[in-house]
């Protein structure tokens, strides 16, 4: 098992590095970074000086090797845009994104799993139709529109919640709903499908025939098996949310890592972008890895090999 985990981790690091290298190459194709650094009003002399100062005239592979060498020693460099340590910059922003991501996935699981279970237990009922309706609407509504609607209702009309910023927990309520709602339909549908399949299986019939209470059958016997693919999906969704919270962070001015990544591309702030890609990739891989471990715990059959 330990060898298996080590192999997985080694592979994960290779994947992260490959992703970072590809991204590094692509980012250089998005325009001259010296122009982005020097700013829109910069003269040609300004740009030439930036090129010299940052060494953009060197071969790209050399620049990548330099960056990687420093990254391995824990030095992610200095942000070209903010002229501050990338580690310091990201630490602050990542806290916001992680908080938002964890709140959103919790929100999604709290809504989607009970609803999926209820829908599966009562096929074609009102609750089942409501769940399906919610699922379709959830996927159809663009998050920027949903975010603005919530701002209009809760921030402008009712004045209950702030529209932007990340100073207090209230600032996270609306973004959590918007981001979490985006992940809800898939988790809900998978829970419903899994539960329906499990509920029609022999061992559930046996459990029922033995006279076990419905709640015990549903949550102890059925849900434990039905939730296995949901765990994997939730892990993927969580990874997706970290990078995909760009729109939500932008609308609610949350100043998280997702928005920072987006802006860093626009500014050609390569050190920040590189560090974020590496961190996002690592988190994504880590979540998938943790999901595998959790699934193995839920289903002993998966522990083999």
């Amino acid at each position, binding site marked *: 098992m330990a060898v298996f985990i080590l192999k997985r981790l080694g592979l994960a690091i290779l994947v992260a590095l490959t992703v970072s290298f590809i991204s590094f190459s692509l980012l250089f194709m*998005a*325009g*001259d*970074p010296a*122009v*982005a650094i*020097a*700013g*829109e*009003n*910069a*003269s*040609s*002399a*300004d740009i030439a*000086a930036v090129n010299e*100062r940052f060494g953009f005239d060197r071969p790209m592979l050399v620049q990548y090797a330099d960056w990687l060498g420093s990254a391995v020693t824990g030095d992610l460099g200095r942000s070209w*845009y*903010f*002229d*501050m340590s990338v580690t310091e*910059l990201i630490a602050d922003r990542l806290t916001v994104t992680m908080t938002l991501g964890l709140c959103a996935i919790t929100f999604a699981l709290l809504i989607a799993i009970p609803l999926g279970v209820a829908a599966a237990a009562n096929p074609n009922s009102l609750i089942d139709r409501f769940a399906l309706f919610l699922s379709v609407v959830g996927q159809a509504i663009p998050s920027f529109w949903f975010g*603005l609607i919530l*701002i*209009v209702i809760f*921030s*402008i009309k009712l*004045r*209950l*919640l*702030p*529209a*932007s*910023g990340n100073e*207090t*927990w*209230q600032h996270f*309520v609306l973004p959590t709903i918007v981001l979490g709602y985006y992940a809800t339909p898939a988790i809900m549908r998978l829970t419903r499908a899994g539960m329906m399949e499990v509920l029609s299986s022999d061992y559930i019939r046996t459990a029922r025939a033995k006279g076990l209470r419905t709640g015990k059958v549903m949550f102890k016997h059925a849900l434990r098996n039905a939730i296995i693919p949901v765990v994997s999906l939730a892990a993927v969704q969580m990874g997706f949310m970290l990078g995909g919270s760009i729109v939500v962070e*932008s*609308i*609610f*001015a949350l*100043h998280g890592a997702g*928005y920072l990544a987006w*802006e860093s591309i*626009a500014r*050609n702030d390569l050190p920040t972008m590189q560090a974020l890609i590496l961190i996002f990739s690592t988190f994504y891989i880590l979540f998938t890895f943790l999901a595998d471990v959790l699934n193995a715990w839920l289903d002993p059959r998966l522990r083999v090999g």
Partner: protein
Amino acid sequence: MTFKALMTGTALSLVAAAPAFADKTDDTLRLAFLKELESVDNYYNSAREGILVTRAVWDGLLYRDPNTGEFKGNLATEWKWIDDVTVEFKLREGVTFHNGETFNADDVVYTVNYVTNPESAVKVMTNVSWMKSAEKIDDFTVRINLNAPFPPAEEYLASVVVMYPNEYYAEAGPTGMAVAPVGTGPYKVDKVEPGKLYELSRYEGYHDSPKGEAQIGKIEVKTIPDMNTQMAELFNGGLDFLWNVPADQAEKLAQMDDRFDVVNAQAIRVGYISMDAAAAVDPEGPMTKKKVRQAIYHAIDRQAIVDALVKGSSEVINAGCAPIQFGCDLSVATYDYDPEKAKALLAEAGYPDGFEIDFYAYRDRPYAEAIMGFLNEVGIKTNFNYLKYAALREKRTKKEVAISFQTWGSYSLADVSAITGEFFTGGDLDDAQDAEIIDWVTKAGSITDRDERQALYSQAHAKIANEVYWVPLWTYNVNYVMSKELSFVPTDDEVVRFADFSWK
């Protein structure tokens, strides 16, 4: 706990925790930037938003009255040109920086010598590279030596060149100044969260400056990257002031809501079409032919685009410069909107059926699309390439762009050396490469006689128009939306001066 009790508790906690909403009772002006500011340090920042903070926190030796264009003393009380490359300043006495440090000649010498040192790697070198050094004559007399005659020196000393406290900056450097800025300006900085939040408060010890004392006690600047969210914050009282509001939204606000004042003012930014007249992109390309460039000029109804899209106080211009800039001569050859004449000119140039060409732009997509619409009408089929500025600029310097829609903000400098001097002196963004114009503009940028400079720039603008090296389009404008409780009169240089705000 029952479900009902839980819901009631949640609702009550939300109400109790509702955000604080702004009004003038707490004497705090709240506004937002769309863009994350890279650094508060004036010399390591190139964003317009940075100019706003700079004007509030620091002072230059001089001050240019935005309404009259007159230069007045600020940190200097008198100044005189010793010769073409030396200017001597008598400094104001009794000025202290926000940290209590006394302002004197040492600060000026330190600042100038620091920013002109290439190792300091200030972000916008053209703002400072015209200076060579500074030398102290006595505690309150200083001389700035120039590399060469530089006529707009006063403009720069009144705007982008600001004075730093020598002792503090020697210790803190750009990194320290970025998080704890210290200046002599009307506002001092209380808090900086890089890229996110800036809190300023009135500097009670502010000197007798033509900028005037700050009238509002506190300024809070947040970064909110989405304009819709900024609007929402304005509606719920979280913000008092918005700037750069798109024309359509500003119009709706002005019509729909009587809680806000919507004010429009011109900006120094201008739009223009740049064309490959020097044949650097394609020696045989259509843009190398004067008649084609004339046809393009005749094909575009600039006034219609201004009326329908740009709106506000923008106006069509016939020379590539802002009317408030010194040396901007708009009395040059004009080319009216006349699509038939454009078609005739194209035919004369050998393109009776028009031609197909890649058209580039990097901002204001609707304006670019309108321009393309007019070009298509006369037979110039345009393939649209909308790029980021960095990518487009790179393509231009590599001579891969034959025609593009460009804009230029001149750093809010009211002198055409900041635009004509940038694009018509033979650099890699000079699409004309006209030896005569290069000579005139270079000369105008190195002599101090204003009349002579004006004459040279007029000559240059006349030839640019006659040869149609550019198609000048329009000046830009800025929409400011503010709470009715706020009093603010914007100026035409797009610089929002915090000290000019007051409560009604």
